[in-house]
């Protein structure tokens, strides 16, 4: 089991993106599929996301993360997907040779006829947000704390300040409170909540945890262990407002300041990355700039709902299987999708016109600035409107989906580029 030298499809990462890709690959003609996973168990980050909120779209159920993962793990195994666990991918070559290391298997070289990158993302660090102050024990990213509390059974502190109003930070605020800790404050540098409102209500308001918008950490205090945080208010340019400093005694600072797609291996494989997303440029089948190399999930861009990650996994897995079996890369016309007014980024960054012959193409985007009134989300070819969708509001924390419909095929296939914009209605 899991010891062949060549596979039709190799998937890197057994999180929701990778599991879906592997299942879809198996169901669409791949003769063998292998998932390589660095952790001891499959499931990815879902294993530590023990809270509910997963599967609302795909299963119409409100499941905890591990349950959502288990459905796909069971499906993958029963459909014949092979799993290589406790194995780290060291290197990938552009011709899809994969080098792995594991305790039991030593060094292995595995060849893939098609490859799906599903490594997910890592958390933004203290250094990347350049937090001044000392470097004591007690400064953790929310995900690291989550692993300790939910999987290993340790409390990383007793009194917390959380920087960032992202979902992970808010979820951990509640979790830590459940386990007897005190969360003193949540600080958010933006003038708006960056996570879901539902979490603000059920994690912060429910437990009387104060959220301060337009605030940040001025410095960390404490030599051996965190002793306090100096919080400060900031203006729209993120400049500290003198006189607004407040010292908040605590023993732990949790950072929930953003996720970054983890594309080290993608770079090694020669995949070109989009600076807007920090993930690969992909087309509507999630193929990257390297033929036969696909990507799915948070490694492409950070999703807000795991259900969409699963869908992306299905699309990329099917495409990978077709590539592996047919082993040819059709030179197709690709249309560039550009980010217009108030759009931070769009995925996929280009689409194959021919895809529209069969089905709608889903475009997913995030806005730069929140708009709390009705908006149009539009795709235009020059001045011509190709497709649009009405939304009651638009927020950076909630991904927006827009479809390029089949009926727009003629318009789209004659274009070189299309622009997506979000404008007030």
């Amino acid at each position, binding site marked *: 089991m899991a010891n062949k030298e060549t596979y039709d499809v190799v998937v890197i990462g057994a999180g929701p993106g990778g599991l879906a890709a592997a299942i879809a690959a198996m169901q669409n003609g791949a003769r063998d599929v292998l998932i390589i996973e660095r952790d001891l168990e499959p499931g990815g980050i879902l294993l530590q996301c023990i809270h509910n909120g997963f599967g609302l779209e795909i299963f119409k159920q409100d499941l905890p993360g591990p349950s959502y993962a288990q459905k796909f793990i069971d499906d993958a195994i029963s459909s014949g997907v092979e799993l290589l666990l406790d194995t780290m991918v060291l290197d990938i070559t552009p011709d899809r040779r994969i080098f792995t*290391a*594991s*305790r039991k*298997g030593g060094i292995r070289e595995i060849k893939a006829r098609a490859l799906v990158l599903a490594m997910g993302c890592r958390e933004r660090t203290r250094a990347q947000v350049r937090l001044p102050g000392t470097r004591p*024990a007690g400064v953790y990213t929310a995900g690291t704390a989550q692993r*300790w509390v939910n999987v290993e059974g340790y409390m990383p502190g007793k009194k917390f300040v959380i920087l960032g109003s992202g979902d992970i930070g808010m979820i951990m605020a509640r979790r830590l409170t459940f386990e007897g800790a005190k969360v003193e404050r949540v600080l958010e540098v933006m003038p708006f909540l960056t996570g879901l409102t539902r979490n603000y209500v059920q994690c912060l308001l429910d437990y009387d945890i104060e959220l301060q918008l337009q605030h940040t950490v001025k410095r960390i205090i404490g*030599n051996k*262990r965190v002793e306090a945080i100096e919080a400060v208010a900031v203006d729209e340019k993120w400049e500290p407002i003198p006189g607004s400093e407040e010292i908040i005694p605590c023993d732990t600072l949790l950072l929930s300041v953003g996720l970054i797609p983890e594309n080290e291996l993608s770079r090694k494989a020669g995949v070109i990355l989009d600076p807007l997303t920090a993930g690969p440029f992909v087309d509507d089948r999630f193929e990257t700039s390297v033929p036969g190399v696909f990507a799915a999930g948070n490694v492409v861009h950070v999703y807000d709902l795991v259900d969409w990650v699963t869908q992306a996994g299905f699309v990329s897995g099917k495409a990978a299987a077709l590539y592996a079996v047919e082993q040819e890369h059709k030179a197709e016309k690709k249309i560039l999708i550009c980010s217009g007014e108030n759009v931070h980024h769009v995925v996929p960054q280009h689409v194959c016109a021919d895809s529209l012959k069969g089905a709608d193409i889903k475009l997913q985007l995030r806005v730069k600035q929140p708009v709390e009134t009705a908006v149009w989300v539009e795709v235009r070819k020059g001045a011509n409107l190709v497709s649009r969708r009405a939304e009651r509001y638009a927020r950076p924390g909630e991904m927006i989906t827009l479809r390029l419909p089949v009926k727009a095929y003629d318009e789209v296939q004659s274009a070189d580029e299309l622009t997506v914009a979000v404008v007030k209605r």
Partner: protein
Amino acid sequence: MTQNFDVIIIGGGIVGSMMARSLSRYKLSILLIEKETDICMGATSGNSAFVHAGYDPVPGSLKAYTNVEGNELYEQLSIDLGFDFERNGDYVVAIGQEDVPALERLMAQGKRNGVPGLEMISGMELLKREPLVNPEAVCAMWAPSGGTCDPFGANIAACENAIQNGVQVMLETEFLDFILEGSRITGIRTNRGEYLCRWAVNAAGLYADDVMHKAGLRPEFKIQPRRGEYYVLDEAEIELKPCFFPTPSTAGKGILVAGTVHGNVIIGPNAEVIEDKEDRAVTSAGLQEVICGAKKIIPSLTLRPVISLFAGLRAYGNAPCENPGVDYGHDFIIEIPSKIQGLVNLGGIESPGLTAAPAIAIRVIEMLKDAGEKLEEKKDWNPVRQRRPRFRHLSMEERANLIRKDERYGRVVCRCEMVTEGEIVAEIHAPLPAHTYDAIKRRTWLGTGRCLGGFDLPRVVNILSRELEVSPLEVSKKGPDSEFLTGTTKPGMTWGAEG
């Protein structure tokens, strides 16, 4: 464990460790004491890692002599002791005509100090070699002997080699006072008891002034910690090999931009004299200063690829140069004082201390011989310290062989720096053992990459807990009171079965 030694070295930084290693060549019983939980936690832990060419120090000063002598020794040392060192050279850049006279004076000074290979090159030539440099550079001094190293690697390797050759090392052992018989030092008092010696070596870095004052020496000598802040930039986003300095001003060497042996780029330091000898906080003002200074040399630098920031403290002393005719008020103290017997006194070892350390050791040995100490060489002294394997640097085939020998090398624990469980376990049980997260970090570079320990931290805590046979609640970042975890989520939990 004997209480009676020939030599006791106070301080396990680069100076004390190089001293211990050099002395271990002779038939002497040597003890090195270090007050922290690990060596290399003082001044040696926070610097630019640069092995300076030697044009900066005032000619005739001890700094100048030991800088140039030390620089020459690094190549062979790095081979013998097994640490990373690269001689990529450095450029001192004149941005604008007004810098040129100072640069020419610097070059003349460098030549007087005996720095080899100094050469003035035009701005155009500089840009040809290094296209990222500020196009307004008028000219630059090229110093091919400048280099960079892994300072933790050098410090730890020197100390391990010393242990290999019979030196005893005691951590968490703090010097309290000298034991004096008249004007002769016969021992030292520590928090762990009294130890007798014929010679004590003051290599206490930031605290060297306090130590020598206990012997009644140089009451006017004071060390002020000079804090310097640094950024480390991601190797994937910016590539630079040599070190770039601005033309120095009265404020000091200035803010440099340099490649590291790791492939990253380091920028810094600023210089702020502070009071607290343990204050290694980074400040927003300091970091602003650093990026502004660095952009003067490499204008395209941004803070986007920052993966680490830290501050180091230098032992800035006020000892005047002992060379008559040299007017310089901040030289090294390297002496066997006459007022007191049995002391080798080293003080004010700030930059170029890392570079000078091996040369300081040689000087001290000469001074001991002059003082009548019979130094008999050991026949079996081994100057070579075998470096432990670094998975990251091995070929795929070497990695495969390593895992076959010990399967723990097959589990990668730090993904960003590719550090395996086997390496971590080896450091925990090394001759100078690593018992904290930071100690492992210093030895393996684990946790210094893009995710800054986010992935490896829980795993390293488990490995330390297992190998040291303590609860994970006792595993710390840098010693007592810096434990990571404060409790378990359920009462009476034991830690998991995860191998």
